[in-house]
């Protein structure tokens, strides 16, 4: 049996909504960055540093990082509960899955903290 202890939200609906909203934020960020690079073909370091140290840009970057973390958490949880199950790989599955999920959660958290450190260290 698979339980939902390591899922991000408790309900399927909240997970699903988080997936949609985070996908939107990531797309918006990508479009903005690519658009900015195209609009500024001869970008120099000071311009780039000014952009990234402005508060709105920091917030946007952080929001995107949090979106990536949430999206990856939910996505990986789905993949793991599909393929690393007792049905498919036998009785050790639960232990292996929890190991990967906790590892995944730890790495995700680390990335978010690291991102905060970078963004507010500029």
């Amino acid at each position, binding site marked *: 049996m698979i339980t*939902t202890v390591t899922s991000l939200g408790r*309900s*399927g*609906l909240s997970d699903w909504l988080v997936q949609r909203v985070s996908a939107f934020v990531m797309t918006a960020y990508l479009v903005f960055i690519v658009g900015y690079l195209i609009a500024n073909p001869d970008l120099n370091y000071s311009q780039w540093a000014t952009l990234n140290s402005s508060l709105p840009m920091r917030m946007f970057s952080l929001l995107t990082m949090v979106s990536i973390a949430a999206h990856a958490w939910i996505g990986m949880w789905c993949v793991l509960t599909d393929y690393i*199950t007792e049905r498919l790989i036998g009785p050790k599955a639960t232990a292996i899955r929890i190991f990967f999920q906790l590892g995944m959660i730890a790495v995700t958290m680390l990335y978010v903290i690291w991102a905060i450190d970078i963004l507010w260290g500029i």
Partner: protein
Amino acid sequence: MLNVSIYRYNPEVDSEPYMQDYQVDTQGKDVMVLDVLEKLKVEDPSLSFRRSCREGVCGSDGLNISGKNGLACITPLSSAVKGNKLVIRPLPGLPVIRDLVIDMSQFYAQYEKIQPYMINNSPAPAIERLQSPEERAKLDGLYECILCACCSTACPSFWWNPEKFIGPSGLLQAYRFLADSRDTATEERLANLDDPFSVFRCHGIMNCVQVCPKGLNPTKAIGHIRNMLVRSAT
């Protein structure tokens, strides 16, 4: 002569399943896959499969025919034979009882979970509970399901989590009762579906739509359920 390859497994004598090859003379006619099976059964009575109505109504002969799930009785050879070869296997993902006969318990358990009956505790009117033609029209494309399991056994999400994901067939039926104006248990039905598996394991792969022999669209019904869940939560 048509080459037919059939999945055989009799747990009482076989240590594992194998494919058995047969040659069938169809006299060049475009008969149904079920006709071929019936012909083979006369020659080899040990060959087991389910069938009843032989006209696409009962849903008992769902099989994996040349790689695609469908009803043997309404699948003509012309749409199933590739390179003079017909390959017949049981529906994938559920335990095989013998040859082409599978154990459908898991599939029915999911059907049972969605409470496939009208719930309405208000006193029954003298004659019947009426619906307007518009209300009735909402059930079209839903009530026609014959529970053949072609869709659910074509769905990867159902293969991986058949005890937690309701599957396309059950969800189509769940929506059939959510959409019924005479049913009053909408809230309770939705609450039972709001976990990360029952509905949300559907990733819109649409295998179900591709195989449904009745031309139904479980993915669309699942989308409606999701919208109802969003609306009831906001």
